[in-house]
């Protein structure tokens, strides 16, 4: 990377900060007025001491109707009257974890399909089709590739035309290849943020290079060396009508959706290439490690702790484990926030994420903590994982976690797009369309002993994989966890 030095007017914030501190400490600030006593002017009342009752959230979801066309493509549909628009999407099972030569190639192929041009109904080659300013969006996920477009309700047919041409007749030619490759490189760069890099390092430490690379695609060389032939081959492997779904959610009728989807998807024939990659799985590393990324002077250390979690194929554990994760780091009243933010005041907050695929489940817990407290905070987080294995959670903690989980189910239908996305996930996970309806009862049935059971089955605090980013002085504070591997921020490619 070229280094540019400019003339003498380079100014540095640390100097300004130091001077400011000096100024503030040395000079007197203007005194502020005093508050008026009594501080509280409002008369008290008995009713203000009464906590209003609120029943657990009620979950009401739009009914899902489905049908299957002769070529295997399914239609999943939910009517939402009064929403004025319709969310149209398509997904095919087979994503970055398993399909094609690499995750990067899957992403490039999906981009070429959505943005690299298509053959229109009159055989013209066009760059893109636009529907009232909307274009097809795409995503290359772990277990599927998906494409979507939003349309006004009366535009369902043209919307599905555009979607179907994108899926079935992408150009995939040399004309746009370089532009698409450049765009994908740019997208990779913007995804190469700290959180993703930390996750990649921790996952690689836990499960090995192959899975780490598949989970967080970041191989620029792979994109640079890809050819149009690679993309065409990947396209053939990626899509399978027998494993595909069209999802329609919005203010249209099932009959309208069915007629339009049948017209544009039911005759689709795709000569599929057999998958070249076998399903991935790897044993969890037996001992803990730390991946430390030195970033230069920083007052905070970003921490991420990685643990095993149930995969999608273990349905019986997923609800309980999800509640466990919420209870640990799902809100300001969760254990991690209570201890690290409210009591110790070393962080602004913590969070969790569940990463799940058919053969894989991971739980990441993250927090940004004061540099000097890096070791203490990490130790506290690890001890919380251990506690969940040995001690049952309290009824009130479980009740809170359940309430959040129920509302989360409810909010999956907050908008057409959100519900369409949730239905897509169910299809990709090979669940039935009525799965969501059954979740509230399953949530309510969970007991504290269920949480302890899944904690004992999955959590491995003695083999925690830690990734951290921060000041080099924070590295030493993590040596108590295990061997430390040091990384520097990647140079620009």
């Amino acid at each position, binding site marked *: 990377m070229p280094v540019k030095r*400019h003339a003498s007017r380079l100014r540095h*914030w640390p100097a300004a900060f130091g001077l400011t501190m000096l100024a503030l400490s040395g000079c007197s600030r203007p005194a502020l007025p005093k508050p008026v006593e009594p501080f509280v002017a409002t008369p*008290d009342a008995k009713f203000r001491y009464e906590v209003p009752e609120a*029943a657990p959230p009620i979950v009401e979801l739009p009914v899902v109707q489905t049908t299957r066309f002769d070529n295997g493509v399914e239609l999943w549909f939910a009517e939402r009257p009064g929403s004025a628009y319709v969310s149209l999407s398509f997904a095919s099972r087979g994503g970055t974890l398993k399909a094609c030569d690499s995750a990067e190639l899957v992403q490039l192929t999906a981009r070429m399909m959505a943005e690299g041009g298509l053959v229109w109904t009159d055989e013209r080659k066009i760059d893109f089709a*636009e529907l*009232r300013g909307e274009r097809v969006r795409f995503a290359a996920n772990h277990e599927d590739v998906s494409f979507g477009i939003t349309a006004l309700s009366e535009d369902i047919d043209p919307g599905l035309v555009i979607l179907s041409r994108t899926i079935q007749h992408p150009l995939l030619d040399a004309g746009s290849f370089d532009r698409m490759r450049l765009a994908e490189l740019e997208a990779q760069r913007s995804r190469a943020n700290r959180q993703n890099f930390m996750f990649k390092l921790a996952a690689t430490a836990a499960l090995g290079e192959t899975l780490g690379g598949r989970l967080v695609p970041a191989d620029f060389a792979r994109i640079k060396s890809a050819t149009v032939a690679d993309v065409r081959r990947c396209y053939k492997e990626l899509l399978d009508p027998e494993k595909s779904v069209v999802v329609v959610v919005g203010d249209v009728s099932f009959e309208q959706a069915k007629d339009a989807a049948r017209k544009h998807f039911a005759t689709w024939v795709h000569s599929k290439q057999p998958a070249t990659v076998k399903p991935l799985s790897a044993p969890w590393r037996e001992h803990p490690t730390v991946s430390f990324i030195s970033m230069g002077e920083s007052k905070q250390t970003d921490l991420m702790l990685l643990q095993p979690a149930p995969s999608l194929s273990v349905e019986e554990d997923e609800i309980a484990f999800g509640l466990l994760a919420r209870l640990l780091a799902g809100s300001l009243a969760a254990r991690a926030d209570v201890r690290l933010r409210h009591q110790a005041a070393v962080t602004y907050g913590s969070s969790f994420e569940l990463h799940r695929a058919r053969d894989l489940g991971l739980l990441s817990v993250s927090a940004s903590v004061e540099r000097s407290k890096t070791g203490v905070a990490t130790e506290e987080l690890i001890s919380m994982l251990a506690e969940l294995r040995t001690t049952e959670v309290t009824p009130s903690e479980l009740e809170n976690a359940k309430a959040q989980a129920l509302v989360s189910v409810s909010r999956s239908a907050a908008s057409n797009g959100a519900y369409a996305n949730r239905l897509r996930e169910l299809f990709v996970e090979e669940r039935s369309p009525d799965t969501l309806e059954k979740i509230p009862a399953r949530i309510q049935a969970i007991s504290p002993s269920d949480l302890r059971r899944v904690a004992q089955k999955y959590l491995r605090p003695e083999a925690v994989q830690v990734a951290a980013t921060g000041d080099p002085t924070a590295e030493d504070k993590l040596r108590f966890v295990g061997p430390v591997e040091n990384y520097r*921020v990647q140079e620009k490619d």
Partner: protein
Amino acid sequence: MAGGKIDWTGLRARTAARALAVCTASFFLLRFPEPAQAGPHHPVTYELANGLRVVLAPRAEDLDAYVLVKYDAGQIHAPADYKGLPHLAEHLTYHGSRHIKPLEYVKHLDRVGAGYNGMTLMESTVYFISVPPNALKLALWLESDRMAFALDGVTEQALEAEKKTVENEWEERNSLHRMIWRRKEAALYGENGPGASDPHEVASVKAVTLSDARWYIQSTHRPDNATLVLGGNFQVDEARKLIERYFGSVANPRLPKLEASFPPPKLCGAHKLHLGHVYIDDPLVTVTWPMRPAISERDKRAQLALAFILDDYLRNLLVSAERPVATSVDTDVLLYETHGLLDVGISFHAGMPFVSVEKVVLKTIATLAENKLSEPELRRYKTRWRLQSDIAAGDGLGRVLEILDGNEPDRAKAVVNGLTSEDIQREAQKIVSVNKQLTTFAEPLDRSRVIVSEIDSEDPCR
């Protein structure tokens, strides 16, 4: 490579060259009728005897009920040398009150699966809660206790705890984007302006005393300085009764409200700011123009339309072109009582001179000032806006936040429908004729530095 013209079907065939103006006419616009207008759904506004303004905007289709309280006190109300006080005060009011012990606020809300947050903005501080409809009473109880009894929770212990939390928050969010924006704010409003806090904010928070915090909260968190907005799924009659019960008796303190005004940017001409930072991957150019405050809804919608169309033009020129030179275009409009800001940011490939990108941006807005939009372009904008508006209407909280800002979705639709090309051109002309802007260049620096460095600047005011 297929040749071909850009034809009326709205599908852009591949061409060897791109025209400056966007000239696709959407096939679907021409073949399908304009979408039907939604029915009116106007919020109801009234005021309690204590001065609390109430806005009720029910919407039965929403899953949740939303309770928002906006206090007309934000960053600009911070006394000199106390820049961090508004943000610290926001944190303190979550720490507990007379009837709600520390941490119980969040526990009560977690129990019902609520979403919640607080924001300290330039001119206001906003607290919001989204709850299942059967928990509306809980949300109103919590917010009324904050308004009336928060000071009972402001103790030395709370103060020390929240000072640390604010500092942690500032450190965690000290992102590149924020650092660049803060430097721009300093260039726009001066080093002692409301937004240019950074190290000042943290230092001032450390020095705040218990008396300072109590005085500030007492002066600002009061019914005659607040607006309560209820949105989403709730029953209007029941809500009115609950509001009267919980908020009706909240008294105002016997001291004056804090008044402040947000002066417009101090720009004298074409200002330039040249920054460097180690985390910058692609060079970035932003151009920020001050705008006069909108005096009508029509003005405001014309300003927003200008931003939308400018963004579109620049994307077509720089990102979607046959040979793209930029990776992204981001356009923001910030509207305040005394002024507005139109900000365009372009990330581009290394090797392009900064000034070339700046020239494209300035030329594009000049084009919009010199030429009216064609009718098809205007129609295209309106249709796209309508679709985006309908999608946004599905976001209950977003809709209520718009209402809090005085934007009524249904009224907005009518105004946008009535916009003319002249309206938009006029807004562009206002900007161009004033001839004041701040251009910021940001480029990658040596990795041994982790701070935003000002490399150079031009200030015509000096």
